[in-house]
């Protein structure tokens, strides 16, 4: 049998779901939540740390919505698939970086079942969505039997495949704030084949002020370490600069000097560092073109 055995639980409401998570956690079970399974089942098929219990969200009502919040952000529920988010006009309008990243996530078949929240909760450091969430300063809506809380993206990704979610907590939705005016975004990665995890990737955005200089930027690397990495030194180096290739080359040097990427069988540290610089120059050029309408 390909998959290891587990105890299976299928709640019908979010309240039941977190009660089950609480009871199982108290009993010392190693419990995982199943949304689309495109990350979880792959790990299980390779028999890496299989869970004792799985809680299936497929019957839980109310987790499959894309909605707009009071602040104008887009809220993506736990069961919303990558594909649904990819074709959503609300996501494209409010969070264009999410829309830019989704075609890079796996392949169409993975995106049919895999979910945005599932990818975020799985927190593979080479995945696109965690880096996008960090770059966009997304907020995570979390439910347990005892409380509801919101976690900022900056606090969410704690380590390799590790988030700030406690074992009895359910990620019910993620909210991406409305993108600022005069902002261009880009998501770029280097991978051997289409759909592979990135050897190095960059989620970037650039905002232009009234004087046509850079008023803010986001530069978040993925695939370079245990979590996605925001490179604030490079972001700060761009402030007040005219968005041109000289500025981007300068920022690329700052970025490359600021990071110590991992080395593994996919790429050396030097390759990842060099690639990060290349992706910054490409990504920010692309983001700038989008602001000035040359490459919508």
């Amino acid at each position, binding site marked *: 049998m390909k998959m290891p055995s587990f105890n*299976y*639980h299928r709640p*019908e409401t979010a309240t039941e779901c977190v009660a089950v998570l609480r009871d199982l956690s108290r009993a010392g079970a190693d419990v995982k939540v199943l949304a689309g399974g495109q990350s979880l*089942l*792959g790990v299980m098929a390779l028999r890496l740390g299989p869970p004792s219990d799985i809680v299936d969200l497929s019957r839980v009502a109310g987790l499959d919505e894309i909605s707009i919040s009071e602040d104008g952000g887009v809220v993506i529920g736990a069961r919303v698939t990558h594909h649904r988010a990819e074709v959503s006009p609300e996501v494209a309008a409010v969070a264009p970086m999410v829309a830019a990243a989704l075609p890079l996530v796996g392949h169409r*078949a*993975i995106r*049919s*079942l895999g979910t945005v929240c599932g990818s975020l909760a799985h927190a593979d450091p080479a995945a696109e969505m965690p880096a996008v969430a960090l770059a966009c300063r997304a907020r995570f809506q979390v439910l347990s039997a005892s409380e509801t809380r919101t976690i900022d993206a900056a606090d969410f990704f704690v380590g390799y495949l590790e988030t700030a979610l406690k074992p009895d907590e359910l990620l019910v939705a993620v909210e991406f704030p409305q993108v600022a005016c005069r902002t261009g975004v880009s998501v770029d990665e280097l991978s051997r084949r289409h759909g592979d995890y990135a050897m190095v990737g960059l989620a970037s955005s650039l905002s232009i002020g009234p004087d046509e200089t850079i008023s803010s930027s986001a530069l978040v690397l993925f695939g370079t370490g245990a979590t996605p990495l925001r490179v604030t030194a490079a972001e700060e180096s761009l402030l007040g600069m005219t968005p041109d290739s000289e500025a981007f080359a300068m920022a690329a040097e700052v970025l490359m000097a600021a990071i110590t990427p991992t080395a593994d069988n996919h790429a050396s540290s030097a390759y990842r560092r060099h690639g990060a610089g290349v992706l910054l120059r490409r990504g920010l050029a692309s983001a700038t073109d989008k602001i000035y309408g040359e490459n919508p």
Partner: protein
Amino acid sequence: MTTLSVPSGQRLSISLKVNDEPVSVEVEPRDTLAGVLRTQLGLTGTHLGCEHGVCGACTVAIDGAPARSCLTLAVQVDGREVLTIEGLARAAGDEAVEFDGQMLHPIQKAFAEKLGFQCAFCAPGFLITTLALLDANPAPTRDEIREEISGNLCRCTGYHSILDSIEHAVAIRQARHTNSAQPGEGAHNA
């Protein structure tokens, strides 16, 4: 509490449609859709290559969307509709075309005429992926096709014959829509 709980090793009953036929089957929660299709339902057209979602040989359609049956638990398709390669010809409906004495989906005829496959281990996954691709985009460019099939691996062909076959499928369907008065194409050699 109405939470259904199934301890490890026990089974539960699921009801779904496979190739437009209602099916009820007892499965363990850990059974994959691929395993249930192949072993319990005898539908061995869906193949297992990598068993972790990368090669695409296991691709079926779930509620019309392409999906990796090796990365789907059977319990996840309770109440849903699954299309496998065995159901592709019938799914063509009145778009079916004749080839070599059989009624096939135009995609199947296209691959046969262009010799798209060699060993055909990858074929079921490619055909379902192509079905989904053409449903979403009936007139893709060669580059768009290349992008959309990048999740299916073939070790025999080098992919050009597959790209040619998909372009041919597009042409067959477009010709059919142009000649919509005709009942279907007669069998002929490529």
